[in-house]
């Protein structure tokens, strides 16, 4: 169908880009999830009023384009804090907080979804707050949260296409570099899109399946 000048070294180059996409995603989602759980629990524990500053801070990450977050964080780290960070580090930092902001919403919602009467029952059996969290809230909240969390992780993967602004060559950027040389935009873009799709689609379906299964009981 396509007569292409794509060489095996170019494919390797693309694969490197894809690898970068995956690495950035995995790091950010991991850190972001840990932070998100932490922030989410803090927000539930403190209540809406006391946690308002934290909520506001996290809200910024959901209300300003990621592109601007990256540019600003980049400029801020270097110019104001005078830290010598690689673009990769900045990308992971911003994406981690970005993930944490959304994740804390998911965590908060799913903890709230555990009936307070169930938690009361646990406490009245002599369980401490931590035990209640560990043995009752976590397993129940996880079922509520997991499908949305999968969606979030995939979202972060797709949004990681923007880290090119801090000089991280991920998949889409690699594709653009190859388009420059090979001048086969449609073909290369389709390879790139297919890669994202092949990772995202099955996982998204899996999330949907979990949601359906767990909402039944």
């Amino acid at each position, binding site marked *: 169908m396509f007569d292409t000048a794509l060489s095996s070294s170019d494919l390797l180059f693309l694969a490197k880009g894809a690898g970068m996409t995956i690495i950035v995603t995995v790091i950010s989602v991991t850190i972001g999830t840990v932070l998100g759980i932490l922030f989410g629990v803090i927000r539930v524990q403190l209540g809406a009023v006391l946690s308002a500053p934290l909520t506001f801070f996290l809200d*910024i990450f*959901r*209300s*300003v*384009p*990621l*592109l*601007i*977050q990256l*540019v*600003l964080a980049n*400029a*801020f780290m270097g*110019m*104001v804090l*005078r830290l010598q960070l690689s673009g990769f580090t900045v990308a992971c930092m911003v994406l981690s907080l970005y993930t944490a902001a959304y994740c804390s919403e998911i965590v908060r919602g799913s903890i709230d979804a555990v009936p307070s009467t169930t938690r009361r029952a646990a406490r009245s059996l002599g369980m401490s707050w931590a035990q209640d969290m560990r043995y009752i809230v976590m397993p129940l909240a996880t079922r509520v949260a997991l499908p949305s969390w999968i969606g979030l992780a*995939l979202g972060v993967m*797709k*949004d990681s*296409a*923007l880290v090119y602004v801090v000089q991280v060559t991920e998949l*889409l950027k690699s594709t*653009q570099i190859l*388009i420059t040389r090979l001048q086969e*935009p*449609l073909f290369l*873009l*389709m390879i*790139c*899109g297919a890669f*994202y*799709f092949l990772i*995202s*689609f099955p996982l*998204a379906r899996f999330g949907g399946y979990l949601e359906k299964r767990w909402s039944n009981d």
Partner: protein
Amino acid sequence: MFEYTFQWNQALARLPKILEGAVVTMEVALLSMLLGIAFAILLTLLRLSGSRPLHAIATTWIEIARNTPALFQIYMAHFGIASFGIHLSPFASLLIGITFNNAGYLAENFRGALKAIPDTQTRAGRSLGMSQLQAFRYIIVPQMLRISFLPMTNQMVWAVLMTSLGVTVGMNSDLYGVTQDLNALTFRTFELFAIAGVIFYVITKAITLSARLVATRLFRY
């Protein structure tokens, strides 16, 4: 070490231009939302149509929109489509890209909303003498609207944020594009993008707050 002195007045002097960009951003977001809703309804109907090819078309659209980066979709709308000899202005490319994305997400949403409305509702409407279309229009759609309202608001916020991707297809009249152009002139990166960030924040807050107001007025049941 390098000392960075903030020069806010230099950046603020450009505020009128930035605000013009904000207006364009709102325009694109709003248009893409209206078109997105229209296409989402169309996609939903296609999926309900019972015809296999139509269903497949709708599903393909929805899954691609949901499973590839928005940046990719917008880039595709400009450079990808151009491979077929179709030339779109940056504005059109951006609009098409975001609309494509919106429609995909909204259609999925509408499907969920439709599922949540019991079909006894249509039945009740039909048995009062309403046609299929009337039952859909007066009974199903209003209820769907309520269920989908919050997701639609979120999508609108997304649309606003997505306009920032227009620069990759040569758009420079929107909020991000204007800011980037000014940055090229003055190199006051931090100040300019901070201002743009604040404006984006204000826009998205305005959207969520007004949506909440509208919702309380609209959905009193």
